[in-house]
């Protein structure tokens, strides 16, 4: 709450008169807005604004930043819904969007837009409608793509409002309808410019309906006369228009300019991009054709041209064309070209124009007929009737229109009176002038519509007329007085005519006119009455022509020309001079001031003027004769005007607003009676109503002004952009020029390079030639040398062949030499051989001789021996016989011997066989024996195992017994008394001795012995207590005796073994020693008689008796070992048992030993 209170304070401070406080508070608000994102502050501001319409708040609201726009829009949406706050909200919206806030694109999505459209469709308040339409028109270029959804809404609104213009539903004031019409016209332009296809199709569909036909004829058709055919109608389509891509490229001002381009209306149209020519043409033509189609304003340029040219033309109307050329730079040329053709080209329009006059005359006559001074009343009435529009009929309405139609009225006044007067004069030049007149009007209208411009203009050209200011004022006043007077005179018939005049004066254009008119008058020395009459006349004219419908006179031209025509002839003659002056004065000044820096020089004075001019007028209007109040107001206005920082635009806005405020104040100050008196005095219309209309009018005007200003801004933006383009183009041109220069330089360089290239080429060719000659020379040399070389080569080859020949010859010779040598050697060898053979043969010959001699000797000897042999031959036979006998005997002997031998062999062989059989038998026996042995072994093993297990069982039993005994001992000891213990122990001992005895029945002897030994051991090993209890004597003796007995017991079979062999005796000695030490012997001895041994013996005896004898010893030993093994397993270890661990190992070992030994020994035996 505190914050709210604070807010309230701050808000109230916003409007404080102290500038610094205001700035501070504004800053505070902005800070808050930056910090706070909530809608609260914005809402409060909006509320406050709607309450007070404070400028500061407006400023803050229109400059809201992004996050708050939504709140603002929501809030506005809310208020637009309410009828009471609608108007102010719309104006706020207008203010906001005219500034083109960064969030403008959100408007298309905001709920505000539909509600605005709805409001436009439903609302019946013209002010709201006009304001809304203007806002909508302003908004449209900002959200072109929104058209897609709302297009039909727009069109509907257009249709509705355009019909309104005509039908005037309900009690709408005519004067509002003029505003409305203007805004509808703007809407028409906007829609046609933005969505031509859709719009045209809408128009087609909407106005083909009969009930709308009239509206079309009356309202829409005239509008259409001010637009060109939109190119989109040819190239585009309905869909294409709505394509967002189309709009993406265009900015707001682009859209505005686009719309302006298609307009033929000079107030709307833009003159760039070559349209100006057509405009000029179109503009110029209509004048020629007596303004049939074109609005009078079209030819602003023309007007300038004409204005400048007018002097000549005025003097020599027919020769106006040449004169026109020089003064205006741009316009005259087209004009020149245009004018002549125009006459021909636009003959149809002319015809049209001609066609119109018949209608206009009706209007004109009344004008004409009226005296200048008393123009108002009569004309008004006249107008009403001729125009035939029912809207005009209510007196106040037309008056209001006249205000709106400022432009229109002005020219007529100037023109009309002269025309009327000049009718006598031939009209041709006047036609021209007439065009100019409209042109002038257009000029004036433009400034009028663009507020600021006119303001700036005014000082400009007023400056020139500065001297006359006072007089103007006076004139105005006078004029007003006169008007009043005239009104008073005519008042009876038309009471409302009076306000009309002041109103006309109130409008800035009107003032201009009046100002213009005044100077005009002064130079022309026309009476003030005339000046006064000037005002009404235009009004009337405008009223006549325009009727209620168009404030911008778009439609007026149709009638204007007619009027003009009629009048021009009349006016030209008399009022030429005033016309000239009038025309002259505005145009030259205006052009520069409008386009350029016209603002600069005389700003303050114009304001002064304005205020002086405007306020008195208002005062004039509303409180007609109270000049004091006028005076009062003036200072107030002056104050406002003094605000140094404000731009002229703002000043104007404020002026109008404050004017309204002041007006309101004044009104409120007025006592009702006085008012009533006044009003009744003037016609009796209710003052409150009047005040409201006026205020609304003011509001509408302001809206329009703001709209126009917005358009101007868009143009400015456009201009800025174009300027930038121009600058860029210039820069590019500069660049081009620079490039050209560079190019030239480079070309020069190239030429220089070419020259040098040629030089170099020449030098090069020269060098080439030189080189060629040198090369040729060298070639010839080379050839020669080659030739020489070849010669030499040939020579060398020849020589080489020769050389080879020689070599071959040498080789041949060498071969020959070798052959010869070999031959020589061979021969030598042969020679030596031959010589050797020779010597050999010689020695052989010698031997032959020797042998021949020997042969001879031997032959002789042989003969000798033959003789001897023959002598000795008889003795040999006896000897041989004896020898034969001896040989025979010997043979026999040997034979018998051999027989003997063979017999012996047989026997021996038989013997061998026998022996072999025996061997086989023995082998077989051996195998059998082995098998049997194994069998026996197995059997024995089985028994052995059984015995062993039995033994194990025994062992366990003894263990259990021991355990039990120990347990019992333990128990005994636990019991207290010694004696008791002793007694018990003896008993226990006895029991223990008895028990084994009992066992002995079933158990074998060794067991018993063993048990004895155990007990003995127990007695011995138990060191302390048993010793102490039993005493070493008795018991100890018992123990030893038992041990000895056990040894005796365990060896009952000893004696036989002792008998058996020396071994046993030896063992015996060993056994004499403590029994425990040599357990094996104990068991080994008795076993010789055991059944195994017997069996073995039997076996062997059976198998081979003879060998048994031999092997007896070994067998016995074997059997003994066997026994030992068996016994060891069975009994031998009994004495060892107390020692615990010992018994287990020997048994398997012994078995293993048995096995191995047995086998080996058996082998030995048999082998």
């Amino acid at each position, binding site marked *: 709450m505190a914050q709210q209170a604070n807010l309230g304070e701050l808000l109230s401070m916003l409007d404080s008169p102290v500038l610094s406080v205001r700035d501070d508070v504004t800053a505070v608000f902005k800070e808050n807005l930056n910090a706070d994102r909530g809608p609260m502050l914005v809402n409060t501001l909006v509320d406050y604004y709607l309450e007070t319409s404070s400028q500061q708040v407006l400023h803050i609201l229109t400059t809201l930043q992004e996050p708050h726009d939504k709140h603002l829009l929501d809030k506005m949406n809310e208020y637009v819904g309410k009828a009471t706050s609608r108007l102010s909200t719309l104006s706020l919206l207008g203010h906001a969007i005219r500034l083109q806030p960064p969030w403008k694109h959100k408007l298309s999505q905001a709920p505000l837009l539909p509600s605005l459209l709805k409001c436009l469709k439903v609302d019946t308040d013209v002010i709201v409608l006009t304001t809304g339409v203007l806002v909508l028109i302003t908004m449209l270029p900002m959200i072109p793509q929104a058209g897609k959804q709302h297009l039909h809404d727009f069109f509907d609104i257009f249709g509705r409002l355009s019909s309104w213009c005509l039908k005037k539903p309900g009690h709408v004031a005519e004067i509002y309808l003029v505003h409305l019409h203007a805004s509808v016209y703007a809407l028409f332009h906007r829609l046609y410019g933005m969505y031509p296809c859709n719009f045209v199709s809408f128009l087609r569909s909407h106005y083909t309906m009969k009930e709308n036909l009239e509206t079309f004829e009356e309202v829409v058709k005239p509008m259409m006369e001010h637009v060109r055919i939109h190119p989109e109608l040819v190239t585009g389509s309905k869909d294409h228009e709505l394509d967002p891509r189309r709009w993406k490229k265009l900015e707001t001002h682009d859209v505005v300019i686009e719309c302006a381009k298609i307009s033929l209306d000079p107030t709307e149209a833009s003159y760039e991009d070559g349209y100006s020519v057509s405009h000029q043409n179109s503009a110029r033509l209509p004048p020629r054709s007596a303004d049939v189609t074109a609005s009078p304003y079209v030819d602003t340029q023309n007007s300038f041209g004409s204005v400048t040219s007018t002097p000549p033309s005025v003097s020599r109307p027919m020769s106006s064309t040449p004169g026109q050329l020089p003064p205006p730079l741009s316009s005259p040329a087209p004009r020149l070209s245009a004018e002549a053709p125009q006459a021909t080209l636009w003959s149809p329009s002319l015809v049209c124009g001609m066609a119109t006059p018949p209608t206009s005359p009706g209007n004109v006559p009344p004008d004409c007929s009226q005296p200048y001074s008393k123009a108002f009343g009569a004309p008004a009435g006249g107008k009403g009737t001729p125009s035939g529009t029912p809207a005009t009929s209510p007196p106040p309405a037309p008056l209001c229109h006249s205000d709106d139609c400022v432009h229109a009225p002005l020219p007529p006044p100037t023109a009309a009176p002269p025309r009327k007067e000049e009718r006598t004069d031939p009209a041709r030049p006047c036609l021209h002038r007439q065009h100019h007149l409209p042109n002038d009007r257009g000029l004036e209208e433009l400034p009028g519509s663009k507020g600021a411009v006119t303001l700036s203009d005014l000082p400009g050209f007023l400056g020139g007329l500065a001297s006359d200011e006072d007089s103007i004022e006076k004139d105005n006043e006078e004029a007003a007085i006169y008007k009043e007077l005239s009104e008073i005179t005519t008042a009876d018939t038309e009471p409302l005519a009076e306000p009309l005049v002041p109103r006309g004066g109130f409008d800035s254009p009107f003032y201009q006119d009046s100002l213009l008119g005044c100077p005009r008058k002064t130079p022309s020395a026309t009476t003030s009455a005339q000046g006064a009459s000037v005002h009404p006349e235009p009004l009337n004219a405008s009223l006549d022509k325009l009727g209620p419908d168009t404030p911008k006179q778009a439609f007026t031209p149709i009638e204007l020309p007619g009027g003009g025509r009629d009048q021009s002839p009349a006016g030209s003659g008399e009022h030429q001079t005033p016309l000239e002056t009038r025309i002259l004065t505005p145009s030259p000044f205006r052009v520069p001031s409008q386009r350029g820096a016209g603002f600069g020089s005389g700003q303050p004075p114009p304001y002064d003027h304005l205020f002086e001019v405007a306020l008195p007028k208002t005062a004039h209007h509303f409180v007609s004769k109270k000049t004091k109040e006028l005076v009062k107001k003036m200072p107030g206005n002056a104050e406002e005007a003094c605000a140094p920082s404000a731009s002229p635009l703002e000043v104007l806005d404020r002026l109008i607003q404050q004017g309204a405020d002041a007006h309101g104040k004044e009104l409120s100050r007025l006592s009702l009676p006085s008012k009533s008196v006044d009003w009744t005095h003037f016609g009796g219309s209710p003052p409150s109503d009047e005040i409201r209309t006026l205020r609304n009018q003011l509001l509408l005007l302001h809206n329009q002004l703001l709209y126009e200003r917005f358009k101007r801004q868009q143009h400015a933006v456009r201009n800025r952009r174009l300027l930038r383009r121009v600058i860029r183009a210039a820069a590019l041109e500069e660049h081009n020029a620079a490039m050209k220069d560079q190019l030239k330089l480079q070309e020069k360089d190239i030429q220089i390079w070419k020259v040098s290239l040629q030089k170099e080429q020449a030098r090069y060719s020269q060098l080439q030639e030189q080189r060629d000659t040198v090369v040729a020379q060298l070639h010839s040399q080379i050839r020669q040398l080659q030739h020489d070389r070849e010669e030499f080569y040939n020579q060398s080859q020849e020589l080489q062949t020769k050389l080879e020949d020689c070599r071959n010859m040498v080789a041949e010779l060498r071969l020959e030499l070798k052959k010869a040598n070999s031959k020589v050697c061979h021969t030598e060898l042969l020679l030596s051989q031959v010589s050797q053979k020779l010597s050999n043969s010689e020695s052989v010959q010698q031997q032959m001789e020797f042998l021949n001699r020997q042969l001879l000797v031997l032959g002789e000897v042989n003969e000798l021996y033959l003789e001897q042999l023959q002598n000795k031959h008889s003795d040999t036979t006896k000897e041989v016989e004896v020898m034969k006998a001896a040989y025979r005997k010997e043979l026999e002997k040997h034979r018998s011997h051999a027989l003997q031998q063979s017999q012996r062999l047989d026997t021996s062989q038989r013997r061998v066989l026998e022996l072999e059989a025996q061997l086989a038998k023995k082998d077989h026996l051996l195998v059998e024996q082995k098998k049997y042995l194994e069998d026996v072994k197995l059997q*024995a093993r089985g028994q052995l195992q059984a015995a062993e*297990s039995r033994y194990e069982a025994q062992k*366990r039993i003894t263990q259990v017994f021991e355990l039990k005994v120990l347990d019992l001992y333990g128990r005994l000891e636990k019991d207290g008394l010694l004696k008791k213990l002793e007694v018990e122990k003896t008993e226990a001992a006895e029991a223990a001795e008895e028990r084994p005895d009992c066992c002995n029945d079933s158990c074998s002897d060794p067991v018993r012995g063993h048990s004895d030994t155990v007990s003995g051991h127990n007695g011995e090993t138990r060191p302390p207590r048993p010793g102490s209890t039993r005493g070493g004597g008795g018991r100890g003796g018992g123990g030893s005796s038992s041990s000895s007995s056990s040894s005796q017991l365990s060896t009952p079979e000893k004696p036989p073994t002792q008998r058996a062999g020396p071994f046993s005796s030896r063992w015996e000695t060993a056994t004499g020693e403590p029994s425990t030490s040599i357990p094996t012997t104990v068991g080994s001895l008795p076993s010789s008689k055991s059944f195994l041994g017997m069996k073995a013996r039997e076996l062997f005896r059976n198998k081979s008796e003879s060998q048994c004898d031999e092997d007896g010893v070994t067998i016995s030993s074997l059997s003994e070992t066997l026994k030992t093994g068996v016994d060891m397993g069975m009994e031998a270890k009994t004495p060892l048992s107390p020692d615990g661990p010992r018994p287990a190992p020997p048994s398997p070992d012994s078995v293993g030993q048995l096995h191995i030994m047995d086998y080996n020994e058996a082998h030995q035996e048999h082998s």
Partner: protein
Amino acid sequence: MTEDSQRNFRSVYYEKVGFRGVEEKKSLEILLKDDRLDIEKLCTFSQRFPLPSMYRALVWKVLLGILPPHHESHTQVMMYRKGQYSDVLHALKVVRFVSDATPQVEVYLRMYQLESGKLPRSPSFPLKPEDEVFLAIAKAMEEMVEDSVDCYWITRCFVNQLNNKYRDSLPQLPKAFEQYLNLEDSRLLSHLKMCSAMSRLPYDLWFKRCFAGCLPESSLQRVWDKVVSGSCKILVFVAVEILLTFKLKVMALNNSEKITKFLENIPQDSSDAIVSKAIDLWHKHCGTPVHSA
């Protein structure tokens, strides 16, 4: 060869036609006639055929090593055994572990404990699980063998065989059981698994006690023939067959506890069929044992 000549030439056809066991007794007698009994052959025989009850005790004793293979030493060895039995019994009586009132089975147990050195300090000590197993087996054995000495010895050796020879293979049996059950009836197995009864089946009863107390002795001794002759796998098939036989009932039970309870107390009437089928199953899966010789 001599054996074959003595055999009935029709014996081959008996088997073909389906008369089983006609020639078995005879062939067993032939086998038993051998001096030095061929233990392997006896094993194979007892695995292939059911033993005639008159020879069962003898064959078991031989197979369990209570009697040696030689006929000659039988009397002597038996004498030893008896002596051992009476010694141990006497000792137990002396230490007052047993009295005349003690049930025979417990006497066997005490004797066994004494022989294996596991005799507790006092007879009142609680029994260990293996003692329970012994008791169960001894109880079944008591029914099968009349002579108390024989009974004690067979029980003792049987248990020893279980503890020594089958020590490694017994724990594997549940796995094998699962495997064969899967082969025979996977649906049943999945049902058991679903009930999470697989791990809670009475494996102790089946494999540690060899169905002692589970099957009646008349059929049990046929199973034990195989166990004694060296195949403990038969137990698995008996278990599988039990499940297959009572499949419907088992499938009807969803609770693992109920299943276990039921299996621990199966009805006795169909036990003979179960054992026959189990032996067939065993032969089917493990093949008919053939004597290598």
